[in-house]
């Protein structure tokens, strides 16, 4: 490798660690000082249990990871809120010193994962686009849709860590052990690791087309590791519960029967948008459609080094949309999309590309409009996240 490139890359990498840490700390500080008072005021509580209050260290589903860590899994389909959640984060909470409160342990894990995730996302963004990205762009990630989740206790950002490392290990053709390891860890963190399977499939096809054995090997390794570990975990749950099918039975609680038809999501969304007087419901259904769509439109507007990078991100977004339609469930799209490495990468690249276009005065009115629209869109999704978390708008 060219020494100049190597040195520049090392410099960028060191700076990216610095900015990742800075972003995480700034986000954590903003969460404690700004979000926490707002959420306390608005009564942030356990989902479907308004009487049990929680704080920023375990909002939304965080409490269920903490419960699994403290009380262990309840191996029965009657306790879907235990079985829905994969074990790695709960195990990590259990491994840390018990002298620290479990919710704080979750928060510490999330913050650590945030710093690593930001570095991983930056490492992923660099090779996929010809645009030069500076590490200080990481400071903008909390402003992107779902970015504020960085400062809270959650399992999405740990999943993002492993998803990002998985995709980086594929495109940079690292040792095959690494995509296997990241795939295993990703699926043990959250089921959202499945969003990586379409992306890896794209790289596999690209590798076959170009006769790139390493690309094929690493992408297949990632897919197979995710599949095997998922099946293993499902069987593990079923064995512990003493009944085959327990895992999927617990999952069915969150599904609408497919017999409703694959278009019933759009029908339900239309009914909610027209009939519902609850703004939260309307925003939930709107965001489940708008956020992936906007990402797809941004995808077309920015340059990529190779088309397979674009198609891989598109495949992940289509996977997200497909699951939303299949499950007929718009819940938590704004946080689930953060588990796709391409989501934050697209945001960063689009911001730089937009500024470049404006500087060059190329199609100035269009890019000005695009930039302003994107800014407004990020602001609105930020407000949606801040208010929607305590008011249960998106779950």
């Amino acid at each position, binding site marked *: 490798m060219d020494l100049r490139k190597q040195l520049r890359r090392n410099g960028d990498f060191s700076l990216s660690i610095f900015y990742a840490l800075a972003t995480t700390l700034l986000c954590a500080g903003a969460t404690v000082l700004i979000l926490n008072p707002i959420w306390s005021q608005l009564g942030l509580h356990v989902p479907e249990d308004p009487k049990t209050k929680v704080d920023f260290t375990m909002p939304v589903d965080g409490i269920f990871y903490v419960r699994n860590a403290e009380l262990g899994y309840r191996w029965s389909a009657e306790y879907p809120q235990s079985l829905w959640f994969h074990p790695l984060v709960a195990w990590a909470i259990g491994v840390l010193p018990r002298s620290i409160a479990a919710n704080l342990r979750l928060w510490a894990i999330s913050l650590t994962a945030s710093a690593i995730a930001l570095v991983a996302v930056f490492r992923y963004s660099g090779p996929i686009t*010809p645009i030069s990205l500076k590490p200080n762009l990481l400071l903008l990630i909390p402003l992107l849709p779902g970015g504020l989740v960085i400062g809270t206790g959650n399992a999405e950002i740990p999943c993002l860590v492993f998803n990002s490392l998985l995709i980086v290990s594929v495109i940079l053709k690292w040792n095959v052990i690494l995509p296997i390891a990241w795939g295993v860890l990703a699926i043990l963190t959250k089921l959202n690791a499945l969003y990586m399977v379409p992306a890896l499939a794209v790289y596999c096809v690209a590798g076959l087309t170009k006769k790139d054995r390493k690309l094929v090997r690493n992408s297949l390794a990632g897919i197979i590791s995710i599949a095997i570990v998922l099946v293993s975990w499902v069987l593990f749950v079923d064995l512990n519960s003493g009944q085959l099918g327990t895992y999927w039975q617990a999952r069915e609680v969150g599904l609408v029967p497919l017999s409703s038809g694959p278009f019933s999501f*759009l029908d339900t969304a239309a009914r909610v948008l027209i*009939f519902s007087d609850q703004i939260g419901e309307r925003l939930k259904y709107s965001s489940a459609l708008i956020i992936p769509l906007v990402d797809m*439109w941004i995808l077309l507007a920015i340059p990529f080094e190779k088309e397979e990078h674009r198609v891989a991100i598109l495949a992940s977004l289509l996977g997200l949309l497909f699951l939303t339609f299949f499950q007929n469930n718009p819940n938590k799209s704004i946080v689930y999309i953060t588990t796709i490495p391409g989501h934050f990468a697209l945001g960063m690249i689009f911001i730089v590309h937009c500024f470049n276009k404006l500087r060059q005065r190329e199609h100035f009115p269009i890019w000005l409009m695009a930039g302003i629209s994107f800014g407004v869109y990020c602001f609105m999704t930020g407000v949606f996240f801040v208010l929607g978390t305590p008011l249960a708008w998106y779950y």
Partner: protein
Amino acid sequence: MKPSSSTELVLAILTSVLGSVLISAGNVILGIAAPTLPKSDGDLASGVAIAFLLFVVYILITRRRAPQEPRLLVVTRRNLDRGQALAKPNRWTYAIVAGVSIFIIVGIGVYSRWVLIERRTMYFIVDASEGSPTTFRELASRIKITTLPVPPETEIGLEAFGGGYSANSGCDDVVELVAPTPKAEAIEKISDALALLDQDSPKGFSGIQHATEYALKQLANRRDTQQIWILVTRLDTRCGELDRNEIDRIAAENNVKYELVIITVGPVSEADQRVLSAFAGRYIYAQTADEIPIIIQQQSRIPPVLYDLYRKVYGSYGP
């Protein structure tokens, strides 16, 4: 076809998406402004939208591209070092994104229009007159609001005629027991109203014409279709002949868009059935009161506009 830059292709996509947004918005506005328009017109608008957008997708897929030449979108050190062409977006990627965008935007537009059409008020008018083989309480209690397959926002009202509940007598004995109220509240209000009524022996005439005219005045200026359900056990000619044209005139006067559904319960002569069928938008004959809940449920699933279309195609009401 002249090859174009990636920006032009992005513009083409944005145009197609904007086009689909505008046409879907038009579809929704059409549904609000003219909800009784037959579904075929809405389908035509959607069909034109889809055809136009598929045409754009076809253009994107088939247009020729210039040979790859080094073009630098952004002058960066890395690009200068490499000096090679950057990857242009693949036409299939554009087509997939366009297809998904069209599917979602047009789908929401089409379903929104359908959902708007379904919005209605259900106003029940129940016969409490003398000589009725089935009592008012037996009829009213079989309106199972909890199982109605309508959205919870649907407003439900209840009126009774001929039961001696109003200050009037004879054909003018009509009273609104429950004003149109959202479904959840209506359940309680109707239950309370029935509990308060002291109905042991019905009295008064079965004045369907006057009861309907009274209902239209109560429903004046309300938005969406007012679905008037009349549960009656016989046709009482003491209050005169049924006059649908007069009903239409009063509806127009009171700015009410309505649909009349008449359910007769018990033995009714064929001649009376014909008269009622001609008077009503929908006429259903129930042999016993036990059939009422199923009939109401089944008929509720058919939104008013579909029945409008059915009537326009197969024959209109009127003597």
